[in-house]
């Protein structure tokens, strides 16, 4: 009984800040400017198919890169002891203490036509590169911003892994590569799943990164939605419809992924 009483404030909080906005999104998505029911918002969305495609593709690529970079990072960190590990953890966490906008801007400065990298290339006599305002730069921004969210859950899963399981595998004849393939990796999959969730979702909906590093050339879903609410194309109804569709696609893909990884245990969202 008591525990229910304690839960009440949280339930109220969730209702106000999660459920109400969600209902508003749904209501807006199914109405037009005069407030009547309509499906037109969804029908008119087909013209933005390429934006959907690009958003999911870039988020997917960023997620894959995050796994490829983040997994080894997490693995070696988790197996490392002492000072080196503390320092490396600090370095991974450090950017997260900085403002999101600020650290993305810093990449603009680094990648610009006359920015840090190109100046560097020039001084050593190499031709300048066009990095900024490409989809590559957008992916780079996503990876840079969201990599810690991949590293941390994998790190914590590997770190908590029972060392005796590794010894048991060795005992049964597994060398270190086989120990990794047959025990450590499968047991770390829940961490990877959490990491994927936590990288993919913000990547798919980001608008700052594409705006700053993509130069507005590669319009993403986040930009599109933002435009409907604050920008030139003001149409919150269409914006809500796009949000809703995006949300459904994300939920479905996460659901499929979790089902896929079910045998390895549920994903732990930190």
């Amino acid at each position, binding site marked *: 009984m008591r525990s229910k009483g304690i839960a009440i404030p949280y339930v109220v909080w969730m209702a106000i800040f999660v459920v109400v906005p969600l209902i508003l999104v749904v209501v807006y998505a199914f109405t037009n400017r005069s407030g009547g029911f309509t499906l037109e918002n969804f029908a008119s969305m087909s013209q933005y198919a390429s934006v959907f495609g690009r958003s999911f593709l870039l988020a997917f690529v960023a997620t894959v890169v995050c796994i490829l970079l983040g997994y080894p990072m997490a693995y070696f960190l988790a197996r490392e002891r002492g000072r080196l590990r503390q320092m490396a953890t600090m370095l991974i966490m450090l950017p997260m203490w900085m403002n999101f906008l600020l650290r993305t801007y810093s990449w603009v400065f680094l990648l610009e036509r006359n920015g840090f990298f190109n100046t560097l290339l020039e001084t050593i006599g190499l031709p300048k590169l066009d990095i900024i305002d490409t989809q590559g730069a957008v992916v780079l921004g996503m990876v840079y911003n969201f990599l810690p969210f991949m590293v941390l859950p994998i790190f914590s899963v590997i770190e908590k892994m029972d060392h*005796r399981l590794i010894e048991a595998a*060795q*005992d*049964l*004849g*597994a060398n270190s590569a*086989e120990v990794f393939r*047959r025990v450590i990796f499968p047991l770390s999959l829940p961490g990877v799943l959490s990491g994927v969730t936590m990288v993919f979702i913000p990547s798919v909906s980001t608008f700052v990164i594409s705006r700053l590093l993509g130069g507005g050339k590669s319009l993403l879903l986040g930009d599109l939605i933002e435009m409907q609410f604050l920008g030139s194309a003001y149409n919150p109804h269409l914006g809500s419809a796009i949000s809703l569709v995006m949300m459904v696609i994300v939920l479905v893909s996460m659901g499929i992924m979790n089902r896929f990884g079910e045998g390895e245990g549920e994903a732990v969202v930190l």
Partner: protein
Amino acid sequence: MAKELIRLQDLCMAFDDEPVLDNLNLYINDKEFLTLLGPSGCGKTTTLRIIGGFTTPTSGDVLFDGVRINDVPPYKRQINTVFQKYALFPHLNVFENVAFGLRLKKVPDAEIKERVMEMLEVVSLKGFENRKPDALSGGQQQRVAIARALVNRPKVLLLDEPLGALDLKLRKDMQMELKRIQQQVGITFIYVTHDQEEALTMSDTIVVMDKGSIQQIGTPEDIYNEPKNAFVADFIGESNIIDGIMVRDKVVKMYGREFPCLDGGFAENEPVDVVIRPEDIDIVPVEQGQLVGTVTGVTFKGMQYDIIVDFRGFKWLIQTTDHSPVGARIGVKIDPDGFHIMKKSQYSGMFGDYSSYSEEYDELSDVEALDEEEAQEDREEGYEE
């Protein structure tokens, strides 16, 4: 003729300069059931881990079939381990857990299936192939762990307190089961336990350890009947250990009285520890008694009464089927073969008095565990002096 399989030579182990194993020398025969027995923290697991290859000794050698294997990694040793907490792979079902070692050796699928099923049969777990370890009881997990190790047909199986988590009944069953499996597959078992009864029931050879060194090696009968020092006598079964003097061969003096015994080979008038097992003492009328004492406690134990008798301030434990009331004056008689004489050792005077037992026997639970703990503390204190 038994063939030597493993030899531990001058083995020392220290963690952060804290000595844990002190100059261990031990050889283990092929097809032998050898038990490392000793109190918690005496270095049993460490010894086993050194044999398994998970820990490198600070100094000394491990020989396998005459070859030094100190630097051979665990996965290359013909040794498999049943770990203290089983360590089953949670992401694999029972079948795949057992098949793990065979898959690594690239054994053909058909043969894997055959051998795994055969092994599950041996440990009576047929029908559990598809369960995940967390859907098994402790006893079942333990049997999976045994099957997982045995299916690889190792030359040696290391078992680290595999029955520790089981209830008494299951423990007894599994003891018989393990012994049967060992005889059936015909390989060496090195078994770790701190339960003396388990050690006595199952082993061909028992190695009694304390504080990182071996106290005695012998058959269960040897260890029980001829303990080398007060520690062994106390750790294996119940013992009254009394200060005595070996007057000459076959005559020992306690309480100022001479008793005939069967032991010999001591110096004349050498101070000794005299061990008398509680079941070797007969209660007789006072006038016929070799010694006379007062009963200070009686506990009914089902098979027998545990009687605490005060002989001039030193309390003995006597196990008998006859009831004697508290306060009664009784005589006792001990046959010559009831005495076991030991040389004095560092453990003399630390064990074998049942004063604390008589005070605590009312608290039925864990009396023995308490006693053991106290004895352990006493021992530690004794060491520091």
